[in-house]
């Protein structure tokens, strides 16, 4: 039960990898996927071997491979987090206008983002903690949030202070309204449905009531009418 206990207090790297692994498990072959920073970054290395998934980076790469494991990475090749990356055979390189044609034009099958808050109507807040942010920074989050065909969020279920990040209404400024389709946390996998959050899957050692107890929004059991 140590793993389950750890999930209750907030995940370390292994628990974060466990979240990422669940997302990776659910990505079908052939999807084009953009990964945000944080837990989503871990996903690309966890896709089951032999399954072809194309990772896109908004700075102009399609078909990223694993991080370079030698001493001489190509310094001209970085991902959106400015980390050195490699290319798979079949990769392509392009500029920002074509990259955001992919993103805003609905060509990316899936974008997995971190979040500050997700509301049960799919609202996403992940770019600013205050309307009077001392130095706001949005990057490509708003373009991805409205442009990708599906937005999944991968995040800790609660803040370090224990507050629920799955809420009935976002308190932070929105990134986009009504866009999140699914949330992966250290406790559960939840779909955003017309009636709100529906628990799709519970992690080992976690039960529905334990998740509800740590969640601000009302949860629904999948397949059970409200």
């Amino acid at each position: 039960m140590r793993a389950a206990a750890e999930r209750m207090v907030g995940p370390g790297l292994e628990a974060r990898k466990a979240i990422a692994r669940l997302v990776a498990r659910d990505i079908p072959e052939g999807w084009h996927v953009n990964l945000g920073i944080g837990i989503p970054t871990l996903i690309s290395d966890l896709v089951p071997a032999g399954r072809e998934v194309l990772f896109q980076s908004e700075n102009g790469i399609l078909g990223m491979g694993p991080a370079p494991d030698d001493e001489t990475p190509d310094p001209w090749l970085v991902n959106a987090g400015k980390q050195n990356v490699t290319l798979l055979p079949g990769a392509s390189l392009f500029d920002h206008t074509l990259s955001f044609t992919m993103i805003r034009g609905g060509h990316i099958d899936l974008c997995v983002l971190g979040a500050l808050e997700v509301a049960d109507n799919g609202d996403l807040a992940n770019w600013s903690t205050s309307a009077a942010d001392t130095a706001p920074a949005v990057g490509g989050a708003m373009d991805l949030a409205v442009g990708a065909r599906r937005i999944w969020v991968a995040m800790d279920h609660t803040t370090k202070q224990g507050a629920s990040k799955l809420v009935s209404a976002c308190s932070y400024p929105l990134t986009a309204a009504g866009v999140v389709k699914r949330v992966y946390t250290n406790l559960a996998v939840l779909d955003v449905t017309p009636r709100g959050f529906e628990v799709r899957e519970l992690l080992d050692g976690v039960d529905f009531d334990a998740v509800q107890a740590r969640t601000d929004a009302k949860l629904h059991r999948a397949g059970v009418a409200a």
Partner: protein
Amino acid sequence: MINKQVARAAEALADVRDGSTILVGGFGQIGHPMALIDGLIEQGARDLVIVCNNAGVGTSGLPRLMKLGRVAKIICSYPRTAAVFTELYAAGKLELEITPQGTLAERIRAAGAGIGGFYTRTSAGTLLAAGKETREIDGVAYVFEKPLKGDVAIIEAWEGDRWGNLTYRGSGQNFNPVMATAAALTVAQVQRVVELGAIDPEDVVTPSIFVDRVVEIPYEPPYPAISY
């Protein structure tokens, strides 16, 4: 394993429905997907809306599709290239929407890039702006243009791989890369399919994400260049 290669043109177009809007690449004969048009002819869909810079040349390809009565409307910048177009249009059997060439490319780009519409000075104050919203921006008249999206894009490229990456040759790009971005289904006719990784990532012009099916159609240096 992802493999977008399909053996035959008609097979690659099997699910095209009546009434579809088809983006057709090429400028004159160059980069014009003749084998895929033949596939469309074989496949049988009717009431098509064809988006192409020209209306084809001679009697094969688009002119044949028109002659067979399969085209309800054509959206292009310069249709005066095929006699059959002129006949059908004069007889009221073919609807025509004339769009300036740059506006045609930009409307297709907008559809592919998630742009809801844009303002251009092109055609402001002319017959082609009739009925369109106009706006003065910094003292200059602009015309509002809407995205032009395809149900299907048929394009011609030079090399392709099983993921759908494409390169082009000479002046063969023209409308092909932008049309690839703007349809629900994009089918590319290529001179040859190469191994994945054989195309340098920096040489890819159309990244694989925009391409759904690839058909290998090798052919000899194509048509004699025709001046008109």
